[in-house]
C-alpha cells in the first residue's frame, strides 16, 4: 500500500468534525457544487464529464446489439462499469477490478436499474433475437472523494442524453446515424454520507472518506421514492439512517435540478 495520507491529517479532520467544522468550510449537510460537460466524446452515444471539488469523473455510453436473455426475450439491458484509473490517485493501480470498483459500479447500477428508470422492453429490437445493451462506463480522472455520487450524476447524465443508433437490414449499427434517444421514466440520484467523530457529513472529500468511521449511500428519485441503499464500512443507528435518507432526498433534488438544466441547454 502506497499511501500519502498522513495520520496527522486524518485526526485533524476528526477533531474539526467534533467541533462542527469541515476542512473546506462546508456545512455538514452541504454538498459540493459541480460543473457538468456533455457530449465531448464523439465516438460515444453520450458522454458526461463532472467536476465536483477535486473529484473528476467521465462517463460514456456505447449501445451494442446482442441476443436477449432467454428469461426476458422482449427486453434489452443495461450494464454499468466503474474504473478508478491509476491516473486518478497514487493509491490506485491498473489491473483487474478492485473490490471498490466493483462495489461502486454495482451501487450506481442498482440505483438506476432498480428504480425502473428504463423500460427495458423499449430496448428490444426483435423478440427473442436481438436487443440493445446500453453499456455505461465511468472513469475516475481525479479522485477527490465521493466517486459514488460523481459516478451517479455523470451516469444519469449519460443515460439522459444517450442516442440510439440506426440499424441496417442486418441489424448492424450504421455509424453516426441515430434513430432516437433513450427514455427515462424517473431520475434516480445517489447521495453519499460519512460519519466522522460521530457526525454525519454529506458528500465527503477524499480525506474525509479516509477519516470516516462509516459510510452510507441512498438513491432517490424525482417522484419521491428511494431506489437503492448501501451501507459501506462501519455502523449507523436507525436515527442516523433516517436522517441521511431525508437529507438524501434534498441533496438529490438540488443536483437533479442542476443536471436537468445542463441537459436541456
Amino acid at each position, binding site marked *: 500500500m502506497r499511501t500519502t495520507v498522513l495520520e496527522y491529517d486524518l485526526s485533524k479532520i476528526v477533531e474539526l468534525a467534533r467541533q462542527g467544522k469541515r476542512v473546506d468550510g462546508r456545512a455538514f449537510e452541504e454538498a459540493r457544487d459541480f460543473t457538468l460537460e456533455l457530449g465531448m466524446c464523439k465516438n460515444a452515444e453520450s458522454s458526461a464529464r463532472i467536476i465536483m471539488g477535486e473529484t473528476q469523473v467521465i462517463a460514456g455510453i456505447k449501445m451494442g446489439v446482442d441476443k436477449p436473455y432467454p428469461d426476458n426475450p422482449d*427486453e434489452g439491458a443495461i450494464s454499468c462499469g466503474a474504473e478508478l484509473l491509476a491516473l486518478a490517485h497514487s493509491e490506485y493501480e491498473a489491473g483487474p477490478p478492485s473490490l471498490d470498483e*466493483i462495489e461502486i459500479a454495482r451501487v450506481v447500477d442498482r440505483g438506476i436499474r432498480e428504480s425502473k428508470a428504463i423500460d427495458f422492453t423499449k430496448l428490444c429490437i426483435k423478440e427473442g433475437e436481438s436487443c440493445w445493451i446500453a453499456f455505461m462506463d465511468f472513469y475516475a480522472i481525479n479522485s477527490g472523494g465521493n466517486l459514488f455520487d460523481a459516478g451517479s450524476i455523470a451516469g444519469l447524465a449519460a443515460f439522459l442524453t444517450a442516442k440510439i443508433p440506426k440499424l441496417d437490414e442486418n441489424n448492424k449499427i450504421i455509424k453516426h446515424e441515430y434513430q432516437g434517444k433513450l427514455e427515462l421514466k424517473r431520475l434516480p440520484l445517489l447521495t453519499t454520507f460519512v460519519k466522522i467523530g460521530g457526525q454525519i457529513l454529506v458528500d465527503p472529500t477524499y480525506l474525509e472518506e479516509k477519516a470516516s468511521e462509516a459510510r452510507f449511500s441512498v438513491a432517490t428519485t424525482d417522484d419521491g421514492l428511494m431506489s437503492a441503499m448501501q451501507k459501506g464500512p462501519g455502523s449507523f443507528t436507525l436515527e442516523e439512517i433516517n436522517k441521511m435518507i*431525508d437529507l438524501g432526498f434534498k441533496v438529490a433534488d438540488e443536483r437533479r435540478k442542476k443536471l436537468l438544466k445542463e441537459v436541456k441547454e
Partner: protein
Amino acid sequence: MSGRVRENMPDYKKDKKRVDGRKMDELRPLSIKVGVIPNADGSAYLEWGQNKVYAAVYGPREALPKHTQNPLKANIKVTYRMATFSVPERKQPRPNRRDMEISKVLGEALDKAVFTEQFPNTEIAVFVEVIDSNAGSRVACLTAASCAMADAGIPMKDMVAATGVGKAFGELIVDLNKDEEDAFDAVDIPFAILPNTKEIVLLQMDGLLKKSEWSEIAKLGYVACEKIYEIQKKALSEKYQLSEVSQKLIEDKSVSKSGEKDSAKIKKESKGKAKKVRK
C-alpha cells in the same frame, strides 16, 4: 427482476398470508449448528428455509502478504462463494462481481462486531459457502459467520444478527423467499444489527420504496433480528453448555490442544494465532 405484472399473482393485502403460508413477519425455519468443521478455528452450518450454508473462521493469523498488515487492528476478510449447484441455473465456478461485493459488505458488517484492535497485523479469514439457496443467502451467511466467529472464541462486542426485510405483492414482509424477491413490486433489503446496541451493520436496498414504508420495514427488521439472535445464542449454548462431566472432558482436551498450539507458536513466530476463549 423484470418488474412486469404476472397473471394470477398473489395479493398479500387480500390473502392475509404469503405464498408459502407464512405470516408477514414470520421467518422461515432456521437452524444453526456450530463446530461442524473440525479443521476450522470456528465454524457453523445453517439451514434457513431452503438456504444451506457453511461458515468457517481461520485466525487471527498473520496477515499475508506483509503489506496488507494493519498495525492497529485485525483485517476481517470474508470470502462468499456459491456452489455451482446451489442455484436453479448452474453457477460458473469462478467468483463473479456479485460474490465479490457480498464478500465486501459482509466483512464490513462483521468488522463492527469484533474487537479487532486486540489483534494487530493479523487477519481473521471467514469463508462462507452456499450449497443451496432461495433468496437471502447473504444474510444466512452473515448469521452463520457470526456464530462461527463466536465458536472460534474471537472476542466480540456482540453477535451479528441478519435477515432480509422488504416488500412484495403489496405488503411489507420479513425474510423474502425467491417468489417474493421476483415480485413485480419487490424491494429486498439485507439488514443486520448488533442486537445489544441496535447498531445497523448491514444495509442494502434494491427496488422502489417510500420513506414511510422503510420506517415500517426497519421495525420489522429489528424484531426479526432479535428472534435470530436467540437462535444463534441457543446454537452456541448447545455446543458449550453441557453436563459438568462432558464440560470437564472438553476442558481437558482444550488444554492439551492449546498446549500444542503454544509450542507451535514458539517454533514459528509467523503464526499470530490467538488463544481461544470459549464461552
